[in-house]
Protein backbone atom coordinates (compact mmCIF):
# COMPACT_ATOMS: atom_id res chain seq x y z
CA UNK A 1 0.00 0.00 0.00
CA UNK A 2 2.78 2.35 1.00
CA UNK A 3 4.49 1.64 -2.28
CA UNK A 4 1.38 2.50 -4.22
CA UNK A 5 0.98 5.78 -2.34
CA UNK A 6 4.62 6.62 -3.06
CA UNK A 7 4.05 5.77 -6.71
CA UNK A 8 1.13 8.16 -6.86
CA UNK A 9 3.16 10.84 -5.12
CA UNK A 10 5.84 10.38 -7.76
CA UNK A 11 3.25 10.67 -10.52
CA UNK A 12 2.01 13.90 -9.00
CA UNK A 13 5.52 15.23 -8.73
CA UNK A 14 6.35 14.29 -12.29
CA UNK A 15 3.30 16.03 -13.59
CA UNK A 16 1.26 13.13 -14.93
CA UNK A 17 -1.66 14.61 -13.07
CA UNK A 18 -4.32 16.03 -15.33
CA UNK A 19 -6.57 18.72 -13.88
CA UNK A 20 -9.57 17.36 -15.78
CA UNK A 21 -9.27 14.00 -14.12
CA UNK A 22 -11.71 13.94 -11.26
CA UNK A 23 -10.78 10.57 -9.79
CA UNK A 24 -8.58 10.65 -6.72
CA UNK A 25 -5.13 9.18 -7.00
CA UNK A 26 -5.13 8.36 -3.33
CA UNK A 27 -7.49 5.54 -2.47
CA UNK A 28 -9.41 6.32 0.72
CA UNK A 29 -8.02 4.65 3.77
CA UNK A 30 -4.34 5.40 3.01
CA UNK A 31 -2.21 7.59 5.20
CA UNK A 32 -4.09 10.84 4.67
CA UNK A 33 -1.42 12.89 6.41
CA UNK A 34 1.24 11.81 3.92
CA UNK A 35 -0.92 12.50 0.90
CA UNK A 36 -2.16 15.73 2.47
CA UNK A 37 1.44 16.87 2.76
CA UNK A 38 2.17 15.76 -0.80
CA UNK A 39 -0.85 17.67 -2.08
CA UNK A 40 0.25 20.73 -0.11
CA UNK A 41 3.73 20.52 -1.63
CA UNK A 42 2.35 20.25 -5.15
CA UNK A 43 -0.41 22.86 -5.04
CA UNK A 44 0.11 25.25 -2.13
CA UNK A 45 3.73 25.39 -1.02
CA UNK A 46 5.03 27.81 -3.63
CA UNK A 47 2.83 30.58 -2.23
CA UNK A 48 2.25 29.64 1.41
CA UNK A 49 5.81 28.28 1.81
CA UNK A 50 7.05 25.07 3.42
CA UNK A 51 6.71 26.64 6.87
CA UNK A 52 3.08 27.65 6.24
CA UNK A 53 4.13 31.18 7.18
CA UNK A 54 3.37 32.67 3.77
CA UNK A 55 5.14 35.66 2.20
CA UNK A 56 4.76 39.06 3.92
CA UNK A 57 2.36 41.39 2.04
CA UNK A 58 1.89 38.79 -0.70
CA UNK A 59 0.54 35.44 0.53
CA UNK A 60 -0.97 35.08 4.01
CA UNK A 61 0.23 32.59 6.61
CA UNK A 62 -1.72 29.39 7.18
CA UNK A 63 0.10 28.94 10.49
CA UNK A 64 -2.08 30.42 13.21
CA UNK A 65 -4.70 31.62 10.73
CA UNK A 66 -8.29 31.82 11.93
CA UNK A 67 -9.36 31.05 8.35
CA UNK A 68 -7.64 27.67 8.55
CA UNK A 69 -8.62 26.55 12.03
CA UNK A 70 -12.04 28.25 12.11
CA UNK A 71 -15.26 27.72 10.15
CA UNK A 72 -14.76 24.72 7.88
CA UNK A 73 -17.28 25.85 5.27
CA UNK A 74 -15.50 29.13 4.74
CA UNK A 75 -12.18 27.30 4.53
CA UNK A 76 -13.49 24.83 1.96
CA UNK A 77 -14.97 27.66 -0.12
CA UNK A 78 -11.65 29.56 -0.16
CA UNK A 79 -9.63 26.62 -1.39
CA UNK A 80 -12.31 25.47 -3.84
CA UNK A 81 -13.08 28.87 -5.41
CA UNK A 82 -10.04 31.01 -4.57
CA UNK A 83 -9.95 34.44 -2.93
CA UNK A 84 -8.83 37.94 -3.88
CA UNK A 85 -8.73 41.33 -2.20
CA UNK A 86 -9.84 40.05 1.20
CA UNK A 87 -8.18 41.20 4.44
CA UNK A 88 -6.80 38.26 6.41
CA UNK A 89 -6.64 38.78 10.17
CA UNK A 90 -6.26 42.55 9.65
CA UNK A 91 -3.57 42.40 6.94
CA UNK A 92 -3.80 42.90 3.18
CA UNK A 93 -2.12 40.60 0.68
CA UNK A 94 -1.33 41.54 -2.89
CA UNK A 95 -1.33 38.13 -4.56
CA UNK A 96 -4.40 36.09 -5.50
CA UNK A 97 -5.46 32.72 -4.19
CA UNK A 98 -6.34 30.51 -7.16
CA UNK A 99 -9.30 28.12 -7.02
CA UNK A 100 -8.67 24.39 -6.70
CA UNK A 101 -11.98 22.98 -7.88
CA UNK A 102 -10.03 20.53 -10.05
CA UNK A 103 -9.08 18.59 -6.92
CA UNK A 104 -11.46 15.84 -5.82
CA UNK A 105 -13.45 15.98 -2.59
CA UNK A 106 -11.08 13.39 -1.16
CA UNK A 107 -7.94 15.34 -2.14
CA UNK A 108 -9.34 18.59 -0.76
CA UNK A 109 -10.28 16.91 2.50
CA UNK A 110 -6.74 15.58 2.81
CA UNK A 111 -4.96 18.85 2.09
CA UNK A 112 -7.32 20.77 4.38
CA UNK A 113 -6.90 18.23 7.16
CA UNK A 114 -3.16 18.60 6.66
CA UNK A 115 -3.10 22.41 7.00
CA UNK A 116 -5.45 22.28 10.00
CA UNK A 117 -3.07 19.96 11.84
CA UNK A 118 0.31 21.35 10.69
CA UNK A 119 2.46 24.48 11.26
CA UNK A 120 1.35 24.47 14.91
CA UNK A 121 -2.36 24.39 14.01
CA UNK A 122 -4.52 21.97 15.98
CA UNK A 123 -7.98 21.63 14.48
CA UNK A 124 -10.02 18.57 13.57
CA UNK A 125 -10.13 16.86 10.20
CA UNK A 126 -12.18 17.86 7.17
CA UNK A 127 -14.06 14.97 5.55
CA UNK A 128 -14.71 14.40 1.86
CA UNK A 129 -18.43 14.57 2.66
CA UNK A 130 -18.01 18.08 4.10
CA UNK A 131 -16.17 19.19 0.95
CA UNK A 132 -18.83 17.60 -1.23
CA UNK A 133 -21.61 19.43 0.63
CA UNK A 134 -19.94 22.83 0.09
CA UNK A 135 -19.09 22.05 -3.53
CA UNK A 136 -22.68 21.09 -4.40
CA UNK A 137 -24.13 24.06 -2.50
CA UNK A 138 -21.95 26.36 -4.61
CA UNK A 139 -23.10 24.94 -7.95
Amino acid at each position, binding site marked *: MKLIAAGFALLLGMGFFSPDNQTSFIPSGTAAADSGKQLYT*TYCLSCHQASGKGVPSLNPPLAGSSWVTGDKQRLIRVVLNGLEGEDIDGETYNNVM*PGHDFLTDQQLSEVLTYIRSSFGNKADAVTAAEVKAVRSAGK
Partner: protein
Amino acid sequence: MKLLIGVAAAGALAWMTSGQDPVPLKLPSGFTATVVNEGVGKARHIVVDASGTIFVKLSKLEKGKGLAILRDTDKDGKAETVSYATGYAGTGIAIWKDWLYDSSDSSVYRYPLKNGAIDESKRETIVTGLTFQREHGSKSITLDDAGHLYVNFGAPSNACQERNRQLGSKGMEPCPILEWYGGIWQFDGAKKNQKQADGVRFATGIRNAVALDWNPASKQLYALQHGRDDLHRLYPSLYTDEQNAELPGEEFLLVKKGSDFGWPYCYYDWQTSKKVLAPEYGGDGGRKVGICEGKDLPLLSFPGHWAPNDLLFYTGNQFPARYKNGAFICFHGSWNRSPLQQRGYLVAFIPMGKDGKPSGKYEIFADNFAGGEIMSPGDAQARPVGLAQGADGALYISDSINGKIWKITSRK
Protein backbone atom coordinates in the same frame (compact mmCIF):
# COMPACT_ATOMS: atom_id res chain seq x y z
CA MET B 1 49.21 27.65 5.69
CA LYS B 2 50.65 30.76 4.12
CA LEU B 3 48.30 30.31 1.23
CA LEU B 4 45.34 30.02 3.54
CA ILE B 5 46.23 33.24 5.34
CA GLY B 6 46.65 34.94 2.00
CA VAL B 7 43.19 33.88 0.94
CA ALA B 8 41.68 35.02 4.23
CA ALA B 9 43.37 38.41 3.97
CA ALA B 10 42.14 38.85 0.41
CA GLY B 11 38.65 37.93 1.61
CA ALA B 12 38.77 40.53 4.35
CA LEU B 13 39.89 43.14 1.88
CA ALA B 14 37.23 42.26 -0.63
CA TRP B 15 34.39 42.41 1.85
CA MET B 16 34.55 45.48 4.01
CA THR B 17 31.74 45.45 6.51
CA SER B 18 30.32 48.25 8.59
CA GLY B 19 31.09 48.13 12.27
CA GLN B 20 28.02 48.82 14.35
CA ASP B 21 25.29 47.05 12.37
CA PRO B 22 24.31 43.65 13.86
CA VAL B 23 23.63 42.40 10.33
CA PRO B 24 26.41 44.16 8.44
CA LEU B 25 26.11 44.53 4.69
CA LYS B 26 28.79 42.99 2.53
CA LEU B 27 30.30 45.60 0.23
CA PRO B 28 33.26 45.74 -2.13
CA SER B 29 36.51 46.96 -0.62
CA GLY B 30 36.63 50.72 -0.09
CA PHE B 31 32.91 51.13 0.59
CA THR B 32 31.27 51.69 3.98
CA ALA B 33 27.64 51.28 5.01
CA THR B 34 26.15 53.49 7.72
CA VAL B 35 22.66 52.90 9.05
CA VAL B 36 21.19 56.41 8.97
CA ASN B 37 17.85 55.30 10.39
CA GLU B 38 16.77 51.97 11.96
CA GLY B 39 13.21 52.11 10.67
CA VAL B 40 10.64 54.63 9.45
CA GLY B 41 7.84 52.27 8.39
CA LYS B 42 7.24 49.99 5.42
CA ALA B 43 9.52 51.73 2.95
CA ARG B 44 9.31 51.69 -0.84
CA HIS B 45 11.20 54.07 -3.12
CA ILE B 46 13.33 56.92 -1.80
CA VAL B 47 14.91 60.19 -2.97
CA VAL B 48 17.40 62.56 -1.41
CA ASP B 49 17.28 66.27 -2.28
CA ALA B 50 20.11 68.79 -2.53
CA SER B 51 19.79 69.66 1.19
CA GLY B 52 20.39 66.01 2.15
CA THR B 53 16.81 65.43 3.27
CA ILE B 54 15.64 61.86 2.61
CA PHE B 55 12.07 61.28 1.40
CA VAL B 56 10.78 57.73 1.89
CA LYS B 57 7.56 56.57 0.27
CA LEU B 58 5.70 54.07 2.46
CA SER B 59 3.58 51.10 1.32
CA LYS B 60 1.54 51.30 4.51
CA LEU B 61 0.44 54.42 6.36
CA GLU B 62 2.53 55.29 9.40
CA LYS B 63 0.72 57.56 11.87
CA GLY B 64 -1.83 58.06 9.11
CA LYS B 65 0.84 59.33 6.70
CA GLY B 66 2.42 57.91 3.57
CA LEU B 67 5.70 59.80 3.28
CA ALA B 68 8.55 59.85 5.80
CA ILE B 69 10.92 62.83 5.74
CA LEU B 70 14.33 62.30 7.39
CA ARG B 71 16.89 64.91 8.34
CA ASP B 72 20.26 64.81 10.01
CA THR B 73 19.62 67.89 12.14
CA ASP B 74 22.66 67.55 14.44
CA LYS B 75 25.00 66.54 11.59
CA ASP B 76 26.18 63.32 13.25
CA GLY B 77 25.67 61.24 10.10
CA LYS B 78 22.33 59.76 11.24
CA ALA B 79 19.01 60.97 9.90
CA GLU B 80 17.35 60.92 13.29
CA THR B 81 14.73 63.65 12.82
CA VAL B 82 11.70 62.06 11.19
CA SER B 83 8.47 63.77 10.22
CA TYR B 84 5.58 62.37 8.23
CA ALA B 85 3.48 63.92 5.45
CA THR B 86 0.72 63.19 2.89
CA GLY B 87 -2.23 60.90 3.49
CA TYR B 88 -1.68 58.06 0.99
CA ALA B 89 0.63 55.07 0.75
CA GLY B 90 2.39 54.01 -2.46
CA THR B 91 5.69 53.26 -4.16
CA GLY B 92 6.84 55.88 -6.65
CA ILE B 93 8.88 58.97 -5.82
CA ALA B 94 11.08 61.28 -7.89
CA ILE B 95 12.63 64.74 -7.82
CA TRP B 96 12.44 66.81 -10.99
CA LYS B 97 13.63 70.42 -10.88
CA ASP B 98 11.86 72.06 -7.91
CA TRP B 99 9.21 69.40 -7.59
CA LEU B 100 8.79 66.25 -5.55
CA TYR B 101 6.64 63.71 -7.41
CA ASP B 102 5.13 60.71 -5.70
CA SER B 103 2.43 58.16 -6.36
CA SER B 104 -0.28 56.16 -4.69
CA ASP B 105 -1.33 52.99 -6.51
CA SER B 106 -4.01 55.00 -8.32
CA SER B 107 -2.59 58.56 -8.76
CA VAL B 108 0.57 60.58 -9.30
CA TYR B 109 1.02 63.89 -7.45
CA ARG B 110 3.67 66.58 -7.18
CA TYR B 111 4.60 69.18 -4.56
CA PRO B 112 6.84 72.25 -4.68
CA LEU B 113 10.13 71.30 -3.01
CA LYS B 114 12.47 73.78 -1.35
CA ASN B 115 15.31 73.20 1.13
CA GLY B 116 14.13 69.77 2.17
CA ALA B 117 10.50 70.75 2.63
CA ILE B 118 7.42 70.17 0.48
CA ASP B 119 4.43 72.50 0.43
CA GLU B 120 1.44 70.20 0.87
CA SER B 121 -1.02 73.05 0.34
CA LYS B 122 0.25 73.43 -3.24
CA ARG B 123 -0.18 69.80 -4.23
CA GLU B 124 -0.94 69.15 -7.90
CA THR B 125 -2.58 65.96 -9.13
CA ILE B 126 -0.81 64.92 -12.32
CA VAL B 127 -2.36 61.52 -13.11
CA THR B 128 -5.60 60.42 -11.49
CA GLY B 129 -8.42 57.89 -11.57
CA LEU B 130 -6.30 54.80 -12.12
CA THR B 131 -7.94 51.50 -11.23
CA PHE B 132 -6.74 50.28 -7.88
CA GLN B 133 -5.38 46.75 -8.04
CA ARG B 134 -3.57 44.73 -5.41
CA GLU B 135 -1.48 42.51 -7.66
CA HIS B 136 1.40 44.47 -9.23
CA GLY B 137 -0.27 47.75 -8.31
CA SER B 138 2.90 49.82 -7.73
CA LYS B 139 2.92 52.96 -9.84
CA SER B 140 6.67 53.46 -10.04
CA ILE B 141 7.66 56.71 -11.72
CA THR B 142 10.56 58.48 -13.38
CA LEU B 143 10.92 61.67 -15.44
CA ASP B 144 13.10 62.41 -18.46
CA ASP B 145 15.08 65.59 -19.12
CA ALA B 146 12.18 67.13 -21.03
CA GLY B 147 9.76 66.54 -18.16
CA HIS B 148 7.84 63.56 -19.50
CA LEU B 149 6.57 61.35 -16.72
CA TYR B 150 6.84 57.56 -17.10
CA VAL B 151 4.55 55.35 -15.03
CA ASN B 152 4.59 51.57 -14.57
CA PHE B 153 1.23 49.86 -15.13
CA GLY B 154 1.96 46.37 -13.82
CA ALA B 155 -0.33 43.60 -15.04
CA PRO B 156 -2.80 42.35 -12.41
CA SER B 157 -1.96 38.83 -13.48
CA ASN B 158 0.84 36.27 -13.61
CA ALA B 159 0.53 35.06 -17.20
CA CYS B 160 -2.84 36.36 -18.45
CA GLN B 161 -4.63 33.07 -17.82
CA GLU B 162 -8.44 33.03 -17.99
CA ARG B 163 -8.29 32.34 -14.26
CA ASN B 164 -5.22 33.97 -12.80
CA ARG B 165 -2.63 31.55 -11.40
CA GLN B 166 -5.02 28.60 -11.58
CA LEU B 167 -3.62 25.26 -12.63
CA GLY B 168 -4.98 24.17 -16.00
CA SER B 169 -6.42 27.57 -16.97
CA LYS B 170 -5.58 28.69 -20.52
CA GLY B 171 -3.76 31.86 -21.54
CA MET B 172 -6.09 34.47 -23.09
CA GLU B 173 -5.28 35.23 -26.71
CA PRO B 174 -4.95 38.07 -27.40
CA CYS B 175 -4.30 39.08 -23.80
CA PRO B 176 -6.88 41.83 -23.05
CA ILE B 177 -4.86 43.04 -20.05
CA LEU B 178 -2.28 44.59 -22.37
CA GLU B 179 -4.66 47.35 -23.37
CA TRP B 180 -4.34 49.10 -20.00
CA TYR B 181 -1.59 47.26 -18.16
CA GLY B 182 1.62 45.31 -18.70
CA GLY B 183 3.55 48.32 -19.92
CA ILE B 184 4.94 51.78 -19.27
CA TRP B 185 2.80 54.83 -20.02
CA GLN B 186 4.16 58.31 -20.75
CA PHE B 187 2.47 61.49 -19.52
CA ASP B 188 3.12 65.21 -19.53
CA GLY B 189 4.82 65.71 -16.17
CA ALA B 190 3.43 69.24 -15.74
CA LYS B 191 -0.19 68.78 -16.82
CA LYS B 192 -2.82 68.35 -14.15
CA ASN B 193 -5.51 65.70 -13.84
CA GLN B 194 -4.52 63.42 -16.69
CA LYS B 195 -6.36 60.12 -17.00
CA GLN B 196 -4.57 57.02 -18.22
CA ALA B 197 -6.16 57.56 -21.64
CA ASP B 198 -4.45 60.97 -21.84
CA GLY B 199 -1.09 59.21 -21.66
CA VAL B 200 0.71 57.22 -24.35
CA ARG B 201 1.41 53.53 -24.05
CA PHE B 202 5.17 53.99 -24.43
CA ALA B 203 6.15 50.30 -24.25
CA THR B 204 4.26 47.04 -23.77
CA GLY B 205 4.75 43.38 -22.90
CA ILE B 206 6.30 44.14 -19.50
CA ARG B 207 4.62 42.20 -16.70
CA ASN B 208 5.62 44.60 -13.94
CA ALA B 209 8.37 47.23 -14.01
CA VAL B 210 8.73 48.32 -10.39
CA ALA B 211 12.28 49.38 -11.28
CA LEU B 212 12.51 52.07 -13.93
CA ASP B 213 14.80 55.05 -14.41
CA TRP B 214 15.81 57.62 -16.96
CA ASN B 215 19.51 57.45 -17.82
CA PRO B 216 20.70 61.05 -18.21
CA ALA B 217 23.95 59.94 -19.90
CA SER B 218 22.42 57.89 -22.72
CA LYS B 219 19.15 59.88 -22.61
CA GLN B 220 17.04 56.74 -22.64
CA LEU B 221 14.57 54.94 -20.42
CA TYR B 222 15.48 51.63 -18.76
CA ALA B 223 13.50 49.23 -16.62
CA LEU B 224 13.60 45.77 -15.13
CA GLN B 225 10.80 43.29 -15.39
CA HIS B 226 9.53 41.05 -12.62
CA GLY B 227 9.40 37.80 -14.57
CA ARG B 228 6.45 35.42 -14.28
CA ASP B 229 6.05 32.91 -11.46
CA ASP B 230 5.21 29.26 -11.01
CA LEU B 231 6.41 27.47 -14.15
CA HIS B 232 6.65 24.26 -12.10
CA ARG B 233 3.40 24.52 -10.13
CA LEU B 234 1.41 25.32 -13.28
CA TYR B 235 3.34 23.02 -15.66
CA PRO B 236 4.97 20.26 -13.60
CA SER B 237 5.44 18.05 -16.67
CA LEU B 238 7.49 20.76 -18.44
CA TYR B 239 9.53 22.29 -15.59
CA THR B 240 11.24 20.86 -12.52
CA ASP B 241 11.49 22.69 -9.19
CA GLU B 242 15.11 23.50 -10.08
CA GLN B 243 14.14 25.03 -13.44
CA ASN B 244 11.33 26.95 -11.78
CA ALA B 245 13.78 28.41 -9.29
CA GLU B 246 16.04 29.82 -12.02
CA LEU B 247 13.52 30.73 -14.74
CA PRO B 248 12.56 33.01 -16.27
CA GLY B 249 15.25 35.68 -16.22
CA GLU B 250 14.67 39.03 -14.52
CA GLU B 251 15.25 41.22 -17.58
CA PHE B 252 17.17 44.50 -17.72
CA LEU B 253 15.46 46.44 -20.50
CA LEU B 254 16.29 49.38 -22.70
CA VAL B 255 12.81 50.76 -23.20
CA LYS B 256 12.22 52.56 -26.49
CA LYS B 257 8.99 54.01 -27.73
CA GLY B 258 7.04 51.08 -29.15
CA SER B 259 9.14 48.36 -27.49
CA ASP B 260 7.36 45.05 -26.91
CA PHE B 261 9.07 42.63 -24.55
CA GLY B 262 6.57 39.84 -25.04
CA TRP B 263 4.69 39.28 -21.79
CA PRO B 264 2.51 37.21 -21.38
CA TYR B 265 3.23 35.20 -24.53
CA CYS B 266 6.96 34.92 -24.02
CA TYR B 267 9.57 34.79 -21.31
CA TYR B 268 13.35 35.09 -21.37
CA ASP B 269 15.43 32.00 -20.66
CA TRP B 270 18.76 33.43 -19.49
CA GLN B 271 20.41 30.03 -19.65
CA THR B 272 19.88 29.75 -23.42
CA SER B 273 19.65 33.52 -24.09
CA LYS B 274 16.37 33.07 -25.92
CA LYS B 275 12.93 34.55 -25.66
CA VAL B 276 10.65 31.51 -25.75
CA LEU B 277 6.93 30.74 -25.75
CA ALA B 278 5.24 30.62 -22.36
CA PRO B 279 3.54 27.30 -21.60
CA GLU B 280 0.13 29.03 -21.45
CA TYR B 281 0.63 29.91 -25.14
CA GLY B 282 1.85 26.64 -26.56
CA GLY B 283 5.36 26.64 -25.09
CA ASP B 284 7.02 23.26 -24.69
CA GLY B 285 9.30 23.96 -21.75
CA GLY B 286 11.78 26.31 -23.39
CA ARG B 287 12.45 25.28 -27.02
CA LYS B 288 9.57 26.67 -29.09
CA VAL B 289 10.02 30.32 -30.03
CA GLY B 290 7.02 31.02 -32.31
CA ILE B 291 5.80 34.62 -32.08
CA CYS B 292 8.57 35.45 -29.60
CA GLU B 293 10.97 35.68 -32.54
CA GLY B 294 10.28 39.40 -33.06
CA LYS B 295 10.01 40.45 -29.43
CA ASP B 296 12.55 42.83 -27.92
CA LEU B 297 15.36 41.21 -25.95
CA PRO B 298 16.84 42.32 -22.64
CA LEU B 299 20.26 44.00 -22.49
CA LEU B 300 21.18 41.57 -19.74
CA SER B 301 19.36 39.18 -17.46
CA PHE B 302 19.47 38.07 -13.85
CA PRO B 303 18.35 34.68 -12.49
CA GLY B 304 14.68 34.10 -11.74
CA HIS B 305 12.48 35.65 -9.05
CA TRP B 306 15.00 38.05 -7.54
CA ALA B 307 12.35 40.79 -7.86
CA PRO B 308 14.10 43.92 -9.18
CA ASN B 309 12.44 46.76 -7.29
CA ASP B 310 14.54 49.81 -8.09
CA LEU B 311 17.03 51.09 -10.65
CA LEU B 312 19.40 54.03 -10.34
CA PHE B 313 21.93 55.39 -12.81
CA TYR B 314 24.84 56.68 -10.78
CA THR B 315 25.87 60.20 -11.79
CA GLY B 316 27.93 61.07 -8.71
CA ASN B 317 31.66 61.60 -8.36
CA GLN B 318 32.21 60.04 -4.95
CA PHE B 319 32.46 56.40 -6.12
CA PRO B 320 35.41 55.21 -8.24
CA ALA B 321 35.21 56.22 -11.90
CA ARG B 322 34.04 52.82 -13.14
CA TYR B 323 30.73 53.36 -11.34
CA LYS B 324 29.97 56.58 -13.19
CA ASN B 325 26.76 56.28 -15.26
CA GLY B 326 26.50 52.62 -14.29
CA ALA B 327 23.27 51.00 -13.13
CA PHE B 328 22.56 50.05 -9.52
CA ILE B 329 19.71 47.59 -9.18
CA CYS B 330 17.93 46.81 -5.97
CA PHE B 331 16.49 43.29 -5.67
CA HIS B 332 13.78 42.65 -3.10
CA GLY B 333 14.55 38.90 -3.01
CA SER B 334 12.68 35.81 -4.11
CA TRP B 335 9.73 33.81 -2.79
CA ASN B 336 8.95 31.70 -5.83
CA ARG B 337 12.13 29.60 -5.64
CA SER B 338 10.51 27.34 -3.02
CA PRO B 339 11.11 24.58 -2.09
CA LEU B 340 14.70 25.66 -2.83
CA GLN B 341 16.58 28.33 -0.88
CA GLN B 342 15.54 31.92 -1.57
CA ARG B 343 17.97 34.28 -3.33
CA GLY B 344 18.42 37.84 -4.49
CA TYR B 345 18.23 39.94 -1.32
CA LEU B 346 20.89 42.29 -2.67
CA VAL B 347 21.92 45.34 -4.69
CA ALA B 348 23.67 44.61 -7.98
CA PHE B 349 25.73 46.85 -10.25
CA ILE B 350 26.03 46.86 -14.03
CA PRO B 351 28.87 48.90 -15.57
CA MET B 352 27.53 50.84 -18.57
CA GLY B 353 29.39 51.86 -21.72
CA LYS B 354 29.11 55.11 -23.64
CA ASP B 355 26.66 53.40 -26.00
CA GLY B 356 24.15 53.09 -23.17
CA LYS B 357 24.61 49.31 -23.01
CA PRO B 358 26.24 47.14 -20.32
CA SER B 359 30.03 47.11 -20.72
CA GLY B 360 30.44 44.03 -18.55
CA LYS B 361 28.64 41.43 -16.48
CA TYR B 362 26.56 42.30 -13.46
CA GLU B 363 28.26 42.31 -10.06
CA ILE B 364 26.84 41.89 -6.58
CA PHE B 365 27.42 45.28 -4.95
CA ALA B 366 25.70 45.06 -1.56
CA ASP B 367 24.72 41.72 -0.03
CA ASN B 368 23.61 40.08 3.21
CA PHE B 369 20.37 42.05 3.65
CA ALA B 370 18.65 38.75 4.47
CA GLY B 371 21.23 38.08 7.19
CA GLY B 372 22.19 34.60 5.92
CA GLU B 373 20.73 31.82 3.81
CA ILE B 374 16.95 31.74 4.05
CA MET B 375 14.23 29.32 2.97
CA SER B 376 11.39 31.86 3.10
CA PRO B 377 11.10 35.66 2.76
CA GLY B 378 9.63 35.91 6.24
CA ASP B 379 13.03 34.85 7.60
CA ALA B 380 14.88 37.80 6.02
CA GLN B 381 16.28 40.48 8.36
CA ALA B 382 15.85 43.13 5.68
CA ARG B 383 14.72 43.41 2.05
CA PRO B 384 16.21 46.15 -0.12
CA VAL B 385 13.51 48.00 -2.05
CA GLY B 386 14.62 51.53 -3.01
CA LEU B 387 17.73 53.42 -4.13
CA ALA B 388 18.69 57.08 -4.13
CA GLN B 389 21.77 59.18 -4.71
CA GLY B 390 22.74 62.02 -2.40
CA ALA B 391 24.16 65.33 -3.60
CA ASP B 392 27.57 64.20 -2.30
CA GLY B 393 27.41 61.04 -4.43
CA ALA B 394 26.54 58.65 -1.60
CA LEU B 395 24.12 55.81 -2.37
CA TYR B 396 21.07 55.31 -0.15
CA ILE B 397 19.19 52.02 0.20
CA SER B 398 15.80 51.49 1.84
CA ASP B 399 14.37 48.29 3.35
CA SER B 400 10.72 47.23 3.04
CA ILE B 401 10.41 45.35 6.33
CA ASN B 402 11.17 48.09 8.87
CA GLY B 403 12.17 50.98 6.69
CA LYS B 404 15.82 50.82 7.65
CA ILE B 405 17.92 53.25 5.60
CA TRP B 406 21.59 52.73 4.73
CA LYS B 407 24.01 55.25 3.33
CA ILE B 408 26.87 53.79 1.29
CA THR B 409 29.98 55.91 0.95
CA SER B 410 33.38 55.27 -0.61
CA ARG B 411 36.83 56.55 0.08
CA LYS B 412 37.65 56.18 -3.65
